[in-house]
């Protein structure tokens, strides 16, 4: 800004330029609060940055209003919501839309000069936003920023020329910006801005002297302005007056101030000390010894000052210095102890959270018992817990006279958990007594060997890594490392158990250990090579995903990924095209892979809602995305004659995408079946997966239920046989009996879930920068690789007859799944810091900004926790995938009744509904347990390290992100599980419909 330097060098007595330092967090609303109340911010206020409520504390604007000063405001509409009806005249302009660089500034400029010249104001506040928005959108080194700064320079010059003699011009930045143009944190680049003071007449004795402050804290402006304008300093201000603005001795020489430096200091000191006394009486968080020191200091100073004024002598310079020192030390003490903690509540929360985790673990360990005993007295638990909650509330009402909701809820949660755990313990002992055979198995998790198993070790390492700030800072890499290590454990373990290589090759292996391996070595070898190939895919995609990480301020040597910035920011046209082509092709691959997968399992043959979605909505949605990226990446001024069209397209294409997404998801929900039924065989069109007509003998004496039980294995035996040899179809045709063909019944559960995830993924990708398409493709690869590794290892275990028990998903894949969720949180460019939230997501489809706060908030949430959502919704896939990929005859030892060839894929789940539901419950409980443990770890970190230097920039944000991620994951997991249950119901109906059809 050349205007500052030129003015200050040519007119040193009229002008001052200081570095201006904000207290973090450096979000706009916090800064406005700080600049008007003069108090230090409390951290939690930050969340309400975009839902700013009116300031209730005493503040400058209120004081101005009290003494009848006319405050005119123009600019950022945050002010208007903070100070409703406090302004004499107000011209607010919408501030939330960061794409809009000019509306606010142009609005101010239209009114600024006319207002200045007019006589209708005492205080004029003009809050320009262009530079801030430009930083958010383009970053600090973009040509657009230069244009904006040149414009601001011109504005300052002309204001300096227009200013009258009795006016002080204060130009300041409320916060700085990082290398990427964002702000919110506490790095020096974000907190430091400029303060420029100018008056048309000489205000200062000369050029800046030695004893002037180096850096001015933001809150110091508050008492300064208040005393200059002759209003009381706001009550809760802890600022210190800016001495150079006051004449050194009396009001003689200055035309502006009525107070001398010492008088101003004295008033300021009295005000701060009064506030300190009241505050420390209310809240006990200021350490008593420092409080006593401050109090003592104040008494000394006041007596000294009073003696001097009483005697009429001019007080020495030391007094002024001592007063300043007092004010500075008050500020320091307040800064150090501003955050308040309630140890009791923290301990209670930790206990409740730990118990909840334990409960999840118990549920996962005894899911089969829970499902078998339907009357687990859950209702009693809930009732007792609610009663206890009400009792606590009543007790509070009686003893304190008011109800603190947090304690009531805590009591409720605590009782329910305790009750549940007690019952679990009881039922465990009772079942242990009932069948002794099961007792050692259920006790196995208490042995140290079980605790040392790698999945739990990795979980514990993850837990421990939350407690160290360095590990939280490099969390992306740490999680990737753990993920790789745990994934490597699967093949190693299989090899250790001798399952990876065909048994016949193993001369050392005692033959008696193998219960007659029915599987040929080729199957084993194929399965092993699948496993190794997918492991390679996993490792490769993990490695590539590291290139999409963002950077924290603490990582100095780090360069943020070039894919993170939106295409509009890329200046080189060729690079832009390459990026665009890359993104679009990965989008195409995503769509193609999903469709291919569904087609492979024969799920694209029927005409239901889900199939319609897969056939039409999925491709349409990706086309929409591609178009939207093209439109939003086009430079603002390149197609002038098309600008209207582009603006229209920027609104309507994303909205069309939202509608398609909603329609697709709704269709999947309403009609999740992808089964295509043919009542007559058409051997000419039979594909590989076509099913020959299973003959169904209508036996009159059997109820429909029994018929149903009979039919399901029948269909699948037929299906199996047709895969074995195509001849059967011809044979069945001869029979000419009532027949049913079902395409895609084998993946009836996983297909809708997969499609749901795929659609949701596209929708979430829509909210990300374009380059993230590549990262999302890697996410799909990694999901597939994890599922296939899990499936192959299960198959390998089954092939060798190592029966793992029901459909239960072991710990390792679940831990891998949850680690992958965290890993892709980082690989989609997110970080657990507030300055890295991608606010642009709120404007996808709403370039004109929003009226409410719900919609933008939910869009930003969806953007931030995209990977949590996808992995949580897709979690039940872990249960289905081994069944989808199962090899013929693999479970030979298990299924005795249906013979050797009973690979009926997911229909196996319908044959054993109890095992199915217990496995589903176990899977979700395990996933929740691992997520809950992560939240617990971050809560522990934030609680234990609450006085740590890094608490506000590392642990507290981490805790908030982890907790909200947990909530989002829970909701998504519920969504995924309920989709599975919905499919289950639909399949039930389908069979009911089918049976009368056939028996007729």
């Amino acid at each position, binding site marked *: 800004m050349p205007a500052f330097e030129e003015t200050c060098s040519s007119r040193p007595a009229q002008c001052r330029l200081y570095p201006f330092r904000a207290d973090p967090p450096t979000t706009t609303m916090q800064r406005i609060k700080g600049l008007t109340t003069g108090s230090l911010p409390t951290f939690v206020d930050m969340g309400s940055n975009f839902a700013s409520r009116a300031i209730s504390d005493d503040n400058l604007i209120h004081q101005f209003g009290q003494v009848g000063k006319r405050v005119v405001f123009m600019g950022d509409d945050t002010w208007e919501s903070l100070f409703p009806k406090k302004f004499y005249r107000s011209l607010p302009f919408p501030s939330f839309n960061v794409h809009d660089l000019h509306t606010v500034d142009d609005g101010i400029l239209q009114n600024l000069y006319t207002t200045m010249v007019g006589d209708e104001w005492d205080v004029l506040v003009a809050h320009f936003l262009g530079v801030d928005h430009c930083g958010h959108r383009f970053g600090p080194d973009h040509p657009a920023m230069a244009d904006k700064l040149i414009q601001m320079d011109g504005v300052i010059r002309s204001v300096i020329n227009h200013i009258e003699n009795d006016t002080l011009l204060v130009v300041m930045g409320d916060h700085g910006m990082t290398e990427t143009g964002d702000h919110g944190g506490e790095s020096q680049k974000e907190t430091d801005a400029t303060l420029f003071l100018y008056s048309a007449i000489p205000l200062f004795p000369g050029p800046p002297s030695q004893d002037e402050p180096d850096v001015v804290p933001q809150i110091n402006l508050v008492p300064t302005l208040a005393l200059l304008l002759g209003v009381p300093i706001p009550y809760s201000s802890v600022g210190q007056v800016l001495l150079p603005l006051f004449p050194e001795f009396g009001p003689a020489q200055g035309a502006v101030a009525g107070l001398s430096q010492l008088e101003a200091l004295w008033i300021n000191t009295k005000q701060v000390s009064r506030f300190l006394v009241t505050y420390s009486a209310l809240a006990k968080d200021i350490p008593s010894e420092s409080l006593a020191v401050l109090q003592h200091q104040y008494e000394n100073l006041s007596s000294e000052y009073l003696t001097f004024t009483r005697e009429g002598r001019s007080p020495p310079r030391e007094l002024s210095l001592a007063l300043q020192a007092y004010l500075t030390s008050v500020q320091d003490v307040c800064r150090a102890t501003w955050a308040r903690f309630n140890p009791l509540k923290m301990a209670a929360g930790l206990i409740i959270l730990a118990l909840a985790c334990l409960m999840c673990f118990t549920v996962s360990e005894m899911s089969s018992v829970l499902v078998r005993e339907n009357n687990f007295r859950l209702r009693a638990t809930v009732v007792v817990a609610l009663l206890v909650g009400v009792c606590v509330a009543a007790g509070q009402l009686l003893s304190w006279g008011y109800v603190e909701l947090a304690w009531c809820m805590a009591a409720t949660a605590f009782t329910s958990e305790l009750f549940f755990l007690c019952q679990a313990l009881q039922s465990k002992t009772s079942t242990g007594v009932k069948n002794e055979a099961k007792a050692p198995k259920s006790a196995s998790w208490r042995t140290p060997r079980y605790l040392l198993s790698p999945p739990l070790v990795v979980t514990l390492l993850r837990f421990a890594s939350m407690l*160290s*700030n*360095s*590990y939280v*800072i*490099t969390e992306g*890499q*740490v999680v*990737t*490392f753990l993920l*790789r*290590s745990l994934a490597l454990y699967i093949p*190693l373990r299989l*090899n*250790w*158990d*001798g399952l*990876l*290589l065909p048994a016949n*090759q*193993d001369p*050392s*292996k*005692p033959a008696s*250990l193998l219960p007659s391996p029915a599987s040929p070595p080729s199957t084993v070898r194929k399965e092993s090579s699948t496993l190794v190939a997918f492991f390679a895919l996993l*490792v490769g995609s*993990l*490695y590539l995903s*590291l290139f999409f990480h963002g950077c924290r301020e603490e990582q100095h040597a780090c360069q943020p990924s070039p894919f993170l910035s939106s295409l509009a920011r890329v200046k080189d046209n060729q690079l832009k095209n390459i990026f665009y082509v890359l993104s679009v092709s990965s989008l195409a691959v995503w769509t193609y892979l999903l469709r291919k997968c569904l087609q492979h399992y024969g799920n694209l043959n029927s005409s239901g809602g889900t199939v319609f979605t897969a056939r039409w909505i999925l491709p349409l949605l990706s086309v929409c995305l591609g178009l939207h990226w093209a439109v939003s990446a086009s430079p603002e001024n390149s197609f002038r004659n098309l600008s209207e069209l582009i603006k229209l397209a920027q609104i309507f294409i994303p909205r069309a995408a939202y509608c398609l997404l909603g329609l697709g998801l709704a269709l999947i929900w309403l009609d999740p079946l992808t089964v295509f039924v043919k009542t007559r065989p058409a051997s000419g069109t039979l594909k590989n997966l076509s099913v020959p007509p299973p003959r169904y003998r209508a036996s009159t004496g059997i109820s429909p239920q029994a018929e149903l039980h009979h039919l399901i294995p029948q269909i699948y035996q037929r299906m199996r046989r047709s895969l074995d040899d195509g001849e059967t179809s011809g044979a069945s045709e001869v029979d000419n009996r009532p027949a049913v063909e079902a395409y895609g019944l084998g993946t009836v559960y996983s297909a809708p879930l997969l499609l749901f995830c795929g659609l949701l993924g596209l929708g979430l990708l829509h909210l990300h920068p374009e380059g993230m398409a590549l990262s999302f493709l890697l996410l799909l690869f990694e999901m597939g690789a994890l599922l296939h590794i899990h499936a192959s290892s299960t198959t390998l275990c089954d092939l060798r007859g190592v029966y793992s028990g029901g459909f239960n998903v072991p710990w390792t894949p679940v831990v891998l799944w949850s680690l992958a969720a965290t890993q892709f949180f980082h690989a989609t460019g997110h970080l657990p810091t507030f300055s890295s939230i991608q606010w642009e997501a709120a404007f996808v489809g709403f370039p004109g900004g929003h009226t409410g706060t719900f919609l933008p908030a939910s869009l930003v949430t969806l953007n931030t926790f995209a990977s949590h959502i996808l992995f949580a919704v897709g979690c039940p896939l872990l249960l289905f995938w081994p069944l989808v990929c199962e090899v013929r005859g693999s479970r030979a030892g298990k299924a005795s009744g249906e013979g050797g060839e009973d690979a009926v894929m997911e229909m196996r789940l319908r044959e054993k509904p109890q095992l199915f539901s217990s496995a589903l419950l176990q899977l979700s409980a395990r996933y929740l347990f691992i997520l809950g443990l992560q939240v617990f770890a971050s809560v522990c970190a934030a609680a234990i390290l609450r006085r740590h230097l890094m608490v506000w920039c590392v642990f507290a944000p981490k805790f908030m992100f982890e907790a909200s991620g947990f909530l989002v994951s829970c909701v998504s997991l519920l969504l995924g599980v309920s989709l599975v249950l919905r499919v289950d119901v639909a399949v039930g109906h389908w069979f009911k419909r089918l049976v009368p059809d056939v028996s007729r």
Partner: protein
Amino acid sequence: MWDHEIRAMASTHAIIAASMLMATVVPAALVPGFSVYGTHLLWIYSVSGAVAAVSVAIFWLLGISPPTRKHTLGYKLSRLFRSCLYFFLSCMFFHIVVVLYGAPLIDSALETFSLAVLLSSLTTLRCLCVLGPNVQAWIRVFSRHGAMSVWDTCLQITVALTVLGAWMGAFPIPLDWNRPWQVWPISCSLGAVFGYLSGLVVAPTWIHYHRKQLTYKCK
């Protein structure tokens, strides 16, 4: 039961450990400015060289390597050549694995490769000595019933502990303590060496205490 083998193993391990110590001490006397942290690569190569030379010599003298079917010179030469090739390939393999585990790709390729050489000479070389250039046998050894002699069990333990040590050596790297040993790849190579040393101690001890349970099909 396996007393003779265990005694031989213990003395072998003592010699190897002593050679590693010498490989640290002798260059310190000879080379000016030698230190484990400062001239780390030199230390790595000196240790790997010492371990390689000593193990090859001892295992050759003890005659543990599997009996060769042919005794022609050409066959022996081809075995030697294949062993060298396998050693080099294992260096490449370890390099790739370490890079995939998060080591910088280009910046410190030499350091990463030195670590790979160290890991190879601590693990692959022993496999080569005990099992010969036979990847099938290597894979077979690392299964529960794969060990065919006391030396195979010992191999399992040392290799597992070495790799585990190198893996754990990566843990302190992200910490902000600014210690000299946090620089890549010092902590990992130190971890690998300590893992190997502990393997040298643990293997005979473990086998000694479990000698009653150990049964091998062959031999």
